[in-house]
């Protein structure tokens, strides 16, 4: 077979799937520039950036932006701290550490929507074990996901439970792949441990940290499953993040145009993050191949 035709032939099915996905994406851009409400079809019309204009001047949208950013910053920040800490604790490949690392992966393999249901059972005000445990230390009126003041905290907690293992497992792999010589040399010279950590371990681990954090940032700002299953964006709008807001806009208010505009704003944010990711990914691959 001709060498010039073959690669195209092989990637044709994947190309077709790509087109099948680019089509709805283009439709979404088109919708985002329309006045399009399923309940009021006769009002449908092209309005250029009208939806975006009304989004950027509405306080509800800015609340959604704030909640999404808070959610992202807190989940990724705490997950990085916990994940890095756990990875350092499990750094040496002993049997115990390896078993612990495998068991700690289990939350990550739990469907996020189901994880929310698990935490819902555990935070039930009547019989939930967590409600019981905090009542032992004197906190009796803690309402978890049912109160607007603590709902965001509760969904962040579930996210941390599910996704910290992701950062942990990537950083354990990273730590174990680091060359040994700098550490051995530092030990011979009697360099203080904090110095070793901040000047050797952390800089060498940085590409892995960046990979893990970018993955998490992109996923976290788009979180839907955990929040939808736990609170559906409520109570009020206390956990209303981008995708949940777009979902409700579409299905509850049948406002297709506005929903598409919200998602386009989110897409721009994730697209920028994913460009950074690809750049970093290429560098890592090159380094891995250069080392072999």
């Amino acid at each position, binding site marked *: 077979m001709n*060498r010039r035709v*073959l*690669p*195209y032939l*092989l*990637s044709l*099915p*994947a*190309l077709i*799937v790509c087109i099948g*996905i680019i089509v*709805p*994406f283009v*439709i*979404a851009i088109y919708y985002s520039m329309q006045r399009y409400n399923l309940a009021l079809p006769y009002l449908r019309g092209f309005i250029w950036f009208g939806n975006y204009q009304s989004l950027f001047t509405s306080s509800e949208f800015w609340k959604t932006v704030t909640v999404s950013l808070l959610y992202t910053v807190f989940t990724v920040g705490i997950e990085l701290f916990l994940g890095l800490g756990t990875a350092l*604790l*499990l750094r*040496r490949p002993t049997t115990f550490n390896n078993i*612990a690392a*495998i068991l*700690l992966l*289990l939350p*990550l*393999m*739990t*469907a*996020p*929507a*189901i*994880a929310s*249901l*698990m*935490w819902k*059972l*555990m935070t039930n005000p009547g*019989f939930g*074990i967590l409600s*019981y445990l905090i009542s032992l230390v004197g906190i009796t009126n803690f309402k978890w996901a049912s109160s607007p003041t603590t709902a965001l905290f509760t969904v962040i907690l579930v996210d941390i439970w599910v996704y*910290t293992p992701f950062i942990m*497992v*990537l950083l354990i792999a*990273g730590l174990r*792949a680091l060359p040994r010589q700098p550490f051995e040399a530092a030990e011979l010279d009697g360099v203080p441990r904090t110095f070793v950590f901040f000047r050797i371990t952390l800089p060498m681990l940085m590409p*892995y940290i960046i990979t893990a954090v970018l*993955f998490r940032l992109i996923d976290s700002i788009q979180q839907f499953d955990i929040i*939808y*299953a736990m609170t559906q964006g409520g109570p009020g709008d206390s956990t209303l993040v981008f995708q949940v807001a*777009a*979902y409700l806009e*579409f299905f509850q208010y049948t406002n297709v145009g506005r929903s598409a505009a919200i*998602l*386009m704003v989110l*897409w721009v944010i*994730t*697209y920028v*993050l*994913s460009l950074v990711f*690809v750049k*970093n*990914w290429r560098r890592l691959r090159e380094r891995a191949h250069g080392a072999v």
Partner: protein
Amino acid sequence: MDHTSPLETIFRRVALGVILVFFLFPIFWIVLMSFQTNEQILRIPPRVFFSPTLSNYKALISGELITTVGSLKLTFMHNLWNSFFLSTSSVLVALVLGVPAAYAFARFKFRLGEDIAFTLLSIRFAPPLLILLPLSLLFNEIGLSDTYIGLIWVYQLICLPLIVWIVRGYFEDISPDIEHAYRIDGHSWAQTFFRIAVPLARPGIAAAGLLSFIFAWNNFVFALILGSADKQPVTVGALAFVTAAGISYGQIAAAIVLSILPTLALALYAQRYLVEGLSLGAVKG
């Protein structure tokens, strides 16, 4: 590293203990709940020792929940079957479409190849609702809404990028010299692909397949938007079940256990592949 003070050893053990409890206790507790009757669950203070019952699982498997008010039909086992069917067929389709493409991207440097590979990657990173909401209107028009075929097609959004990116990395790591030698012996391109390249990349293909099965199984939003009750997988079914079961907390816990058991078992079985798969091959495990 080896000269740790006793105080530090204690601190490390305590920290690790707290971390293990935080991440494993929820699973342990829900499993316990699934073997309890409602009266046992509602007891304060909660107990770790109790006489276990299988009644929750029996109700789910037989599909009938008998309460004081009457009996309630449960479709939970059907949701479980849907999860199994949707995930398996999506992964198979993605392997057939994705492995040849991954091979092409790894072996031939061509412009379109890079473009497709990065389009697939950006799909992995795009907000799913951005594709799903227009698709739900589109599916209504072309008659694909609420069909298994429609769902399997959309599940390619999860499976295909994973498979293409992981398997491509494996093909790139295999030296093409063996394939060249086999070709010079007079074998066709297809023979080389199936007899040499695919068997050598088998660990990568297995890793990608298992991981995309787990992600397909755990997916929630696709079927929430594109499927009706009788096509929905356990993730969506469990949420509906919570509403239907009301205060039958034991059954809810049993339903949770049944829906997470397959992926947890698979993850334990395939754990050595997970790191590479999770990072799309960016981090070698």
